[in-house]
């Protein structure tokens, strides 16, 4: 191969604070348009910015989990540009003294472990959201997201392939979500990234012309965009038919192409200057230590604990610790039902398949852990069978039912009356002579059909193992 692709990333991560960076509005995702907005984040004059302490602490945590050097005294700056989603006409960010510099994140690649080095992480406020309404031919502005606190994690151009980029983003997601800094949901925009890409001849030390693909929010799109853009660069270098210019581009997912955003170069003077209304923030060793002590267990440590102390398989552990949300559900359920292997099994086998049916990923699952544990308990106590348990879990998921109450009210407990089970089996054996004969002829699998028939007559409330055992006994005696 003649060329190599050089990629750097700017990853924006919304921090999981309750309120915005500089005002007390809720930072919750999903509210009605402009519901979480006050005069300050609507850009009205006369509202001084007062920094959210929790946001600074999350950013310190981000510095810690990325092995960065924390700036002893950091400060905020103003970046000037006009756009409807920017209520004040300036964004409060950090240019001169960002929270930290020179960190690194280790990723696994086909060639082994690789360190991705970070230039810096800075804190800044998010912009609002624009909705384009074709019916009225206008754009509509929602400031709910305006001033929600972000950390922007700026890497050096250390990536050579899309696979490395994806591995890095997944590692960042794990590091940040397990530290409680962000839920890192790309589809909700709480983790987004700008991809800087250039192509050069292998062996060259100088970087080629760099283009920036803005606002990417899915791993699939990022891979596709990198593939497209690096090919475009290579073609340009190879054929000379297109001249590459340093510019900002956007990814059109439907077409599968990057498109120039045609920004005027002159417009790129952001007139940064230090923000005089926000006092600098001194971060001393004591404060860093307090944040460090408060950090939750990282995914890697948890994986080790799950496999070594709780006896889970590496496969189960990797799934549970591959998502902060699943990991929280695991912990929550384990508190009420103390058998780790079964909890993991229920989550991985049943819960994930229910969620998948609703098009929800690991990160989006919302379930009452106590109810999940209760379902497991009911099955374990042989009050219901596993199939009924799965059905109940589906109802917990959809309607939030109370499992124990639901079982009682709908009389879903397993039939314990052995004479009823006996008589049901005899009825089925009398009715299903074909299957009985098949079994007798040596097709042992025919028993499954018979078990199903008995369960059906018992309205799903039998214990399938017990029914199976009894059937074998009867058939062998016949």
């Amino acid at each position, binding site marked *: 191969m003649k060329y190599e692709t050089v990629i750097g990333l700017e990853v924006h991560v919304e921090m999981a604070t309750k309120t915005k960076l500089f005002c007390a509005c809720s930072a919750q995702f999903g509210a009605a348009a402009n519901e979480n907005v006050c*005069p300050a984040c*609507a*850009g*009205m*004059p*006369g*509202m*001084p*910015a*007062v*920094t959210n302490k929790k946001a600074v602490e999350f950013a310190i945590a981000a510095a810690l989990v990325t092995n960065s050097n924390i700036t002893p005294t950091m400060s905020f700056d*103003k970046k*000037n540009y*006009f756009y*409807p989603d920017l*209520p*004040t*006409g*300036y964004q409060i960010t950090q240019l001169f003294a960002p929270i930290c510099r020179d960190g690194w994140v280790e990723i696994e690649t086909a060639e082994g472990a690789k360190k991705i080095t970070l230039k810096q992480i800075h804190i800044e406020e998010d912009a609002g959201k624009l909705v384009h309404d074709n019916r009225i031919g206008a*754009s509509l*502005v929602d400031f709910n997201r305006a001033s929600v606190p972000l950390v922007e994690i700026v890497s050096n151009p250390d990536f050579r392939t899309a696979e490395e980029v994806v591995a890095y983003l997944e590692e960042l997601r794990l590091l940040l979500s397990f530290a409680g800094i962000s839920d890192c949901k790309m589809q909700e925009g709480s983790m987004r990234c700008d991809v800087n890409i250039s192509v050069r001849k292998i062996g060259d030390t100088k970087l080629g012309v760099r283009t920036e693909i803005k606002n990417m929010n899915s791993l699939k799109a990022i891979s596709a965009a990198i593939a497209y853009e690096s090919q475009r660069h290579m073609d340009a270098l190879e054929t000379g038919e297109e001249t590459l210019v340093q510019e900002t581009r956007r990814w059109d997912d439907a077409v599968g192409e990057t498109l120039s955003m045609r920004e005027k170069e002159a417009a790129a*003077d952001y*007139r*940064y*200057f*230090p*923000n*005089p*209304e*926000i*006092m600098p923030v001194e971060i001393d060793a004591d404060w860093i230590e307090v944040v460090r002590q408060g950090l939750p267990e990282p995914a890697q440590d948890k994986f080790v604990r799950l496999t070594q102390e709780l006896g889970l398989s590496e496969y189960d552990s990797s799934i549970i610790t591959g998502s902060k949300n699943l990991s929280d559900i695991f912990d929550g359920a384990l508190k009420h039902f103390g058998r780790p292997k079964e909890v993991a099994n229920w989550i991985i086998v049943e819960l994930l398949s229910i969620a998948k049916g609703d098009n929800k990923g690991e990160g989006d699952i919302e379930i009452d852990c106590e109810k999940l544990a209760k379902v497991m308990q009911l099955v374990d106590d042989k009050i219901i069978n596993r199939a009924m348990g799965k059905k109940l879990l589906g109802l917990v998921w959809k309607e939030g039912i109370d499992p124990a109450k639901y079982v009682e009210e709908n009389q879903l407990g397993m039939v314990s009356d052995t004479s009823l089970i006996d008589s049901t089996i005899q009825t089925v054996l009398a009715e299903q002579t074909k299957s009985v004969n098949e079994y007798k002829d040596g097709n042992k699998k025919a028993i499954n059909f018979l078990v199903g028939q008995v369960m059906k007559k018992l309205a799903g409330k039998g214990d399938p193992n017990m029914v199976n055992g009894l059937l074998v006994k009867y058939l062998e005696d016949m």
Partner: protein
Amino acid sequence: MDHYTVFLEDSIMQKDTLVTAGSKMLENFVSPFDATVVKRLSESQFSLAGRVIMDEFGIPSLIFEGNEPLGAVKAVADGTASHALCNDLFGKYRKQATENGCCYIHPTYGTVSRFGLIPLASSMDQIGVVCKNLHDGFALLSQIAGKDPRDGAMFPEESYNYAPTSKNIRIGIPKFVNIETIENFAKNFQTIDIELAHFEAYKQVMYILSCAEISNNISRYDGVKFGHRATSFRGLDDLYIKTRSEGFGADVKLTAIMGTMMLSQKQYAPYYEKAMKIRRLIKESLKFDTYDIIAMPCKISDDPYENLALYALPTLAGLPAVSFAHKGCGIQLIANTKCESALLSAWEVCMA
């Protein structure tokens, strides 16, 4: 105390009230909230009596001052109000107060909340008091000063005591001052001649830093969220340009353009950053261990830009200052941070 009636400059927010900052840009802006000073006054014996017009956003012309006093000065001068609150960035209130039989108190930066004050230059903005005499002025100030959690750039003190202290006050008189102009005042005190480092650059530093900060603070006026919007436009950029070109008057436009220039990539280091550095030299060269108060006249020229040098020091160094007329001469006194009491003492001495 029931004769106290306070007027507000039109840059101070009052809930459900039209707040225009003297600009067409905010001609229809109804404030959804009260400024902290308004809230504090409403809980005091001072009653809010009205609002007064102002230079657009508080930015005076650099060329021509005009004869008509500003609304806040006029209201106090003619007795309509006992006090008026305003943000005197460029010294016009300080000067005009002394010319119209009033006094002006510019409190220490960071002692009066700016929550609800339409910002001009955030590193300098400070609500001050136009009053008839400094006793009344400080009585009002003591009601509004003190830490507000909604303003992040404030000293931690919850309240301030402005009672006069020592009458033994040492007055420093800068070399540039023609002593004859303030002779009658100075003879009441022990005086020393002082040098103000880089006085020759005061007005430039003041102008560069303020116009840059102003250009930033007025970026929010774009016809999207509130205030004036051009009636006809083609597309977003045209909406911005027409709205701002129509909504801002000449002095604001010039300030915005100069400020934009000062912050631009090329000019930042030679102008903006340089001015911030000289600002430090100015502040750190002051020697309040050898004098208690710096005294100077309120006017040295008919050129507003030249006079800016006189008002720059309290603004640039965040220092408390008072101005008043003494035997026909406008005097400005400047004290060290949070040493308002010395200013009141000096005023009492010379008025005795």
